[in-house]
């Protein structure tokens, strides 16, 4: 059939286009990576004055870089929490939206609006709500809430995209075979949706990790990483900034890689058990 087809010219053209696009995406990141190895007298732009790991060392030893360690920890924690909550809440909400229910339209629009409202204003509103309720503002409570207002709409929309592709006849088959709703969900729906859920999880983490405007007024007494970095841009003009970029990317990469490896291991184990 189509398997042994030779790759037409279309393939190469498209592949080239895709490659160019990826290079475009990686451009800034490459800049950051290369320039973080800037020589000791170099600046934030080219030319490279030598190559060194001086700035990494400076970053880790000097105290002029504020509370990057603390900010990093808080941002990663928030990111993981946002990841979990966004995935779960978006999954169920997405499933719900397949049916008609009262208020579906307004809720959808409200989620869209959450994306549009300037983060600074929404952050102000959320902080005032917390204060009226008498709750203390902190990065883990009000900060998390602010992050979720950003990640949940994304999660919801991506679930729409994912569910659009989902063939409900699998669920019906399971139901006809006698499976109860919860079992259907666990054994049929979620495994099939799994790649989509990964996408939601990824977005949830990344969006929270990078978020700043909503966080500014809801963060309480300690800063998250983006705020600390932004403070740095007010005082630091050394390639140490790029070293920060490289390190934080490497770290989030590690966090996500570990999560995925963990999931892959669980998957493999589940598959093996299913085969028995």
């Amino acid at each position: 059939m189509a398997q042994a087809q030779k790759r037409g010219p279309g393939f190469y053209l498209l592949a080239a286009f895709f490659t160019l696009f990826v290079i475009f995406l990686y451009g800034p990141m490459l800049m950051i990576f290369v320039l973080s190895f800037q020589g000791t007298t170099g600046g934030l732009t080219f030319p490279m004055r030598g190559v060194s790991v001086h700035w990494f060392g400076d970053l880790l030893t000097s105290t002029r870089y504020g509370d990057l360690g603390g900010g990093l920890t808080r941002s990663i924690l928030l990111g993981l929490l946002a990841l979990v909550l966004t995935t779960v809440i978006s999954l169920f909400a997405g499933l719900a939206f397949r049916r008609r229910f009262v208020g579906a339209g307004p809720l959808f629009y409200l989620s869209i609006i959450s994306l549009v409202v300037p983060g600074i204003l929404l952050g102000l509103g959320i902080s005032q709500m917390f204060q009226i309720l008498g709750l203390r503002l902190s990065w883990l409570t009000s900060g998390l809430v602010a992050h979720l207002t950003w990640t949940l709409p994304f999660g919801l929309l991506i679930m729409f995209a994912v569910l659009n592709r989902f063939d409900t006849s699998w669920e019906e088959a399971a139901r006809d075979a006698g499976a109860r709703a919860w079992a259907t969900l666990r054994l049929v729906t979620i495994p099939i949706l799994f790649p989509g859920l990964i996408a939601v999880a990824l977005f949830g983490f990344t969006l929270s990790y990078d978020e700043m405007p909503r966080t500014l007024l809801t963060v309480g007494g300690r800063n998250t990483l983006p705020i600390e970095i932004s403070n740095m841009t007010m005082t630091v003009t050394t390639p140490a900034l790029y070293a920060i970029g490289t390190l934080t990317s490497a770290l989030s990469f590690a966090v996500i890689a570990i999560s995925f490896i963990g999931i892959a291991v669980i998957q493999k184990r589940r598959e093996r058990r299913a085969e028995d």
Partner: protein
Amino acid sequence: MSGRSSGGGSRLVPYLQVAPLALFTIAFVGIPIATLFALSFWQTDGISIYREFTLENYREMFTSGLTYRLFYTTIKFALITLAATTVIGFTCSYFLVFHVRSLKMQIALLLVCTIPFWTSNVIRMISWIPFLGREGLFNRVIISLGLTREPLDFLLYSEFAVVLTYIHLYTLFMIVPIFNSMAKINPNVIEAARDAGASGWQILTTIIIPLSRTGIALGAIFVVTLVMGDFFVARVMSGGQAASVVSAMKNQIDNLFYPQAAAMAILLIVVVALLVSAILRVVDIRSELAK
């Protein structure tokens, strides 16, 4: 098989499923926005807010030419970005779905696209300068290749730079939904069309594009809302030359003029809601979902 949508289960199920999202959104988005709405009718002296009703904020906003100019610029950015990201996103998704063989490879390539986003946004903004500046890498490359003699000025601190950055940031949000929609297309349909003698172009326009429209619509919603709500990119990449709606709002907020900023925010919300409903009129996502 019955033609029911995801039927089965009691009628209460969707309410239970959507409850967490609904409760959260109403509480932490709905109420703050209602507050914003109220705020836009109040007065301030730059410190305290006086809860006296006034239409002054709106009057000022609507009679100022600045408002229209800001919205014009921002909508222009949004539409250009939308066009570019749709084309690029569609092409890349097409490549991934129809030309990449294994699912694993597809997901791997998608992941490859997301990795750059794990660099801090703030730092990424700074890194455009060594890339696009007069002395930046790009200019050096094209000069050394002999393509131009003078460095290209407009690459940075211009509207071009702003749109370029938007495309860089938001194309991924086009790729993911379109990818999902395309992957759902039954390859047999395409086979059949090809057997019936349809040309590649015809297959594209009569089968693939229509069947991907949900993905395109979702991506469009992402792109439009994100560009309309942005202030950071517009300010930094234009070198402060172009103002977007929200960056002007930020100046007001920095000086604690909340009611004026709130009025502008409400107008922004209304405009974006209109844009999104226009998109939804073309593609009714909700009914697509129910299939």
